[in-house]
């Protein structure tokens, strides 16, 4: 029986992995992930208005020095706001009037004219002339540069000590004090970052749980509708059969998960090689920032036991998903019925995903905390709340114990449904039959 279990597991896995569709889907998945991680480079490769140089004509009607100040300020603004990824600005001093410039702007949409004039109320005023709407980045850069030019001009005009002005503009230093000694401001920052990042990190779990449900449900349903089930079950017990599906399903999910991870790494490597773009640095830098934040927080010290606990919870939840999919599929007599029955599983998984995102917004929510103990939801919610500092390791352990008890309950009672379901081809009184089977020890 042990060999038959191994054989069934191997066959089940082979039927999924050793197919041209698995290969095709993974090639597509690989390309999509690599492209998604390098989307900025791809967009730039195809070009567009954003790629064109902008010429800025400066009409300095103030004192002639504004032009120089503006030129230096626009370089600084470009560097700060876009890490150098945006359009290149060519700044030219324009000696004619705004009216004269209009004909040039009419002919060339990449010319922007800035006319600086003295203002009695606001130090200076600027007239901006362009043919069309400007994009948001250009507008932000020009606005920042103009305002900074005004400040720099004002320092001189009003005889303000530059050192004093620097102090005025500097951010206020906030000294954080936590009564809980275990907390520190780096961890606080990590929590803020993880609130945004975690839903992205758990997305693969959500995807994989759906793949798992579809794989096991589809196989059980296929074997049942082709009546192969009768031959299989006459040679191996239903328990062995379901166990082989659960193990094969989980192995498949692990393989697919590792492959997705590999594609992400490949995508990042590709970024590194073509990574001249600043967004590359931006994303890379963002990841580095997150890792630094996590590294500097207390959280890193607890990763040694947090990661294994979270992995255990994930594996138990995948097993629970697999068992539920197998049991539900055994009750159905065709693929359409199974697809309808799997909808609640998808909704449960989706609910867990949304709750994990909401957890960051509703800090300290008792409702979300209670839900984090519920099997299926716990796999996504519990680690999310742990990372956000909403629950402790003990809560994760409680979630694991509850998940284990749920799996035990499904094995004990679900297998009774499975035994009856796989040989039942009638949908008449289906639920009555299944509840009856669940109660019957000798099924």
């Amino acid at each position: 029986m042990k060999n038959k279990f191994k054989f069934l597991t191997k066959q089940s896995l082979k039927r999924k992995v050793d197919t041209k569709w698995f290969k095709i889907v993974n090639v597509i998945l690989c390309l999509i992930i690599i492209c998604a991680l390098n989307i900025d480079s791809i967009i730039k490769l195809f070009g567009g208005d954003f790629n064109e140089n902008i010429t800025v004509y400066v009409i300095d009607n103030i004192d002639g020095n504004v032009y120089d100040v503006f030129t230096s300020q626009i370089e600084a603004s470009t560097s700060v706001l876009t890490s150098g990824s945006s359009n290149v600005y060519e700044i030219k001093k324009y000696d004619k009037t705004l009216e004269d410039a209009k004909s040039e702007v009419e002919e060339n949409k990449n010319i922007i004219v800035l006319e600086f004039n003295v203002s009695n109320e606001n130090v200076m005023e600027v007239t901006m002339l362009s043919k069309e709407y400007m994009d948001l980045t250009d507008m932000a850069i020009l606005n920042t540069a103009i305002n900074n030019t005004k400040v720099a001009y004002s320092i001189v005009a009003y005889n303000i000590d530059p050192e004093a002005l620097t102090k005025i503009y500097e951010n206020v230093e906030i000294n954080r004090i936590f009564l809980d000694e275990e907390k520190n401001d780096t961890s606080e920052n990590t929590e803020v970052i993880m609130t945004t990042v975690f839903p992205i990190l758990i997305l693969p779990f959500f995807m994989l749980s759906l793949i798992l449900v579809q794989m096991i449900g589809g196989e059980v349903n296929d074997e049942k509708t082709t009546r192969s089930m009768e031959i299989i079950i006459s040679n191996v017990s239903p328990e062995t059969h379901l166990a082989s599906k659960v193990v094969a399903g989980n192995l498949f999910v692990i393989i697919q998960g590792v492959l997705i991870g590999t594609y992400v790494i490949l995508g990042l490597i590709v970024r590194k090689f073509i990574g001249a773009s600043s967004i590359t640095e931006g994303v890379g830098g963002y990841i580095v920032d997150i890792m630094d934040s996590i590294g500097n927080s207390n959280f890193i010290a607890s990763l040694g036991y947090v990661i294994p606990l979270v992995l255990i919870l994930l594996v138990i939840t995948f097993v629970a998903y697999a068992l539920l999919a197998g049991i539900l599929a055994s009750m159905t007599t065709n693929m359409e019925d199974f697809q309808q029955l799997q909808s609640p599983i998808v909704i449960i998984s989706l609910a867990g995903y949304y709750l994990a995102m909401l957890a960051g917004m509703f800090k300290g929510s008792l409702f979300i905390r209670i839900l984090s103990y519920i099997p299926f939801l716990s796999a996504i919610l519990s680690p999310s709340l742990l990372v956000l500092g909403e629950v402790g390791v003990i809560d994760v352990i409680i979630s694991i114990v509850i998940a284990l008890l749920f799996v035990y309950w499904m094995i004990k009672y679900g297998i009774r449904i499975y035994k009856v379901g796989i040989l039942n081809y009638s949908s008449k009184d289906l639920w009555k039959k299944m509840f009856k089977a669940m109660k019957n020890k000798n099924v």
Partner: protein
Amino acid sequence: MLEVKNVTKYYGNFKAVDNLSFTVKPGEIFGLLGINGAGKTTTFRMIMGLLEPTEGEITLDGKKIDYTVTDQIGFLTEERSLLTKLTVKEQVIYYGTLKGMKEEDILTKLDELLEKFEITNYKDTLIKELSKGNQQKVQFITAIINDPKLVILDEPFSGLDPFNVEMFKEAIKELASKGSIIIFSSHRMEHVELFCKKIVILLSGKSVIEGDLKDIKKKYKKKNIFIKGDIDIQELEKLDGVISVEEYGDSYLVKIENEDIVSKVFDKIKKHKNITKFELEDASLNEIFVSKVGESYEK
């Protein structure tokens, strides 16, 4: 030897099989008959160990049928129990391995059987790409790949053309000659009559006829007389004990209540000079089936 002893199966309050008993010895072909819903599938499933009898016992060579015994059983279901996305070779390896066979033994036996059933070319073809008849051949191969002690054949001739039916008949006879116990179910009574030494006819889970087919036919009082030549049909129909007279070209089938009527029929037709055939035969299994079950089994 397969022994089904006083087996009863309930689904809730519904009695699917009612106190069924029969034995089949090695080399015997046993017919299990009944209309749809009579309890055949439940009986097959109990023999296969898929269902536990509520009462009674089923043994093969004295052992209760469980997963240590099912390796010695071959099962051909009425529907095609094949995984259509597999190739013929993969499918046979799949079921063969589940029967506890080693892959190299399966492949050796597979080549032999593919040749026997004349489908060698389809070894690496997907099941779904095969014709119905060839799918049935593959299903038959999977049922006998392990040289089973017990073979259950539920509608084995389904989807086969007459040429392939003959091929299957030979294969089934060969299995029996090698000592396999064969349980056979078919809607075609002529096949049952041809193969089966013993039969059971089920009605609502209960056996209504059981035993040696020859004895059953002999004990059945109603007989048939085949007559070839010119006869007066109306004259025969008026005779007491004549149930009906059916015309088949220049031949007639006269159904009578019992053997005592034969002389009366003969007296009536002997005056006709061109009678070339007058033959008394037992009633067909289908007639017996209809009279016992109340409806025709043949479809």
